[in-house]
């Protein structure tokens, strides 16, 4: 290892001098960044599954929840969320349009 850090070289006068260590040689088999992500993700997912495992069981309603198209709660929630999304989108669009109008008006006046 010491040879890698310091090496002797012949100077112009023929005397040995110590050169600073060259930049570290890149690892021929670097661990790809993606693989590191995947290892972290798998660990986090395993921990989350472990924490959430009790709630996977729906208890006595398992039979009913399998046939979710027969439950009013599902389709009711779907319709409510559609209405909420439409409302929020309209509000954001109105806000963006108002901001653009005010900006234009400010630029003119």
């Amino acid at each position, binding site marked *: 290892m010491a040879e890698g850090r310091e090496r002797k070289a012949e100077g112009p006068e023929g005397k040995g001098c110590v050169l600073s260590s060259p930049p570290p040689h890149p690892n021929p088999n670097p661990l790809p960044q993606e693989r590191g992500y995947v290892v972290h993700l798998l660990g986090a997912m395993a921990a*989350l599954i472990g924490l959430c495992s009790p709630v996977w069981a729906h208890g006595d309603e398992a039979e009913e929840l399998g046939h979710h198209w027969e*439950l009013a*709660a599902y389709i009711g929630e*779907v*319709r409510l969320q*559609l209405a909420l999304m439409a409302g929020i989108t309209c509000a*954001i669009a109105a806000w963006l349009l108002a901001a653009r109008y005010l900006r234009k008006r400010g630029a003119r006046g």
Partner: protein
Amino acid sequence: MRPIWIIARMSVLENSRKHVFHVLCLLTLALIAGSTLLSIFTEGVQVKILKDLCMTSILFGGAALAITLGCTGIPNDVESRTIYPIIARPISRAQYVVGKFLGTMLTVSMGVIAMAAVFGVLIASYQHTFDPYLLLAVGFTLIEVCVIAAISTTISTLASPAITAVLTFLIYICGSIKIGYFGGLIDRATSGFVKVIYAAIYHALPNLECFNLKTALVHHDYVPVAYLAQVAIYGLCYAAFVLFLGTLGFARKEV
């Protein structure tokens, strides 16, 4: 549309070269093939168990693909600085985000369709006939995966890949047990403030369980067409809405 398509095509090429894509596809295909061995032990209901296991494998495989590919697309471009020449062109950031999402979705669809093809061949070899419910179940699985990919892409515009993956996975789990678990939590909450917080989380979470038609495929149950149409529209609207929020956030972000 042309810039979106170009970004989507490049994203498909980039994603399909990733090792994660190949590993997850092969793992899911191995699970599908392995479920034939497990179903041997269930005499009489072999095909039903096979369908159940295979559909679960396809759903988890598709979700894992959507999360891993969706969470790395945009952050990798920002980190490697390949985003600069892209946004320097006459392409809006919204087009870039939508193109990335479409690329992720196309790649995940390729994987899911490959898994579904193997599953279809297995079922056809057992039943000696093609099961039309299979197309329905796989189609709705793709819509569910589309919602997950949209969530992953949107969060990735604001956060690092690791945080994005964990958050998306958490949303996926919570969305899958939304009605059965979170509905009960709201009912059990005593404090009014806690109830409001629970209700806000409850209504913000995607209702992913309604895309799960595994039971209909296994038992050949009739599912009303009106329900299917509403659920399909809901899935596409939810994905579009989440992407809309993502484009709004990304438009103001310093890259």
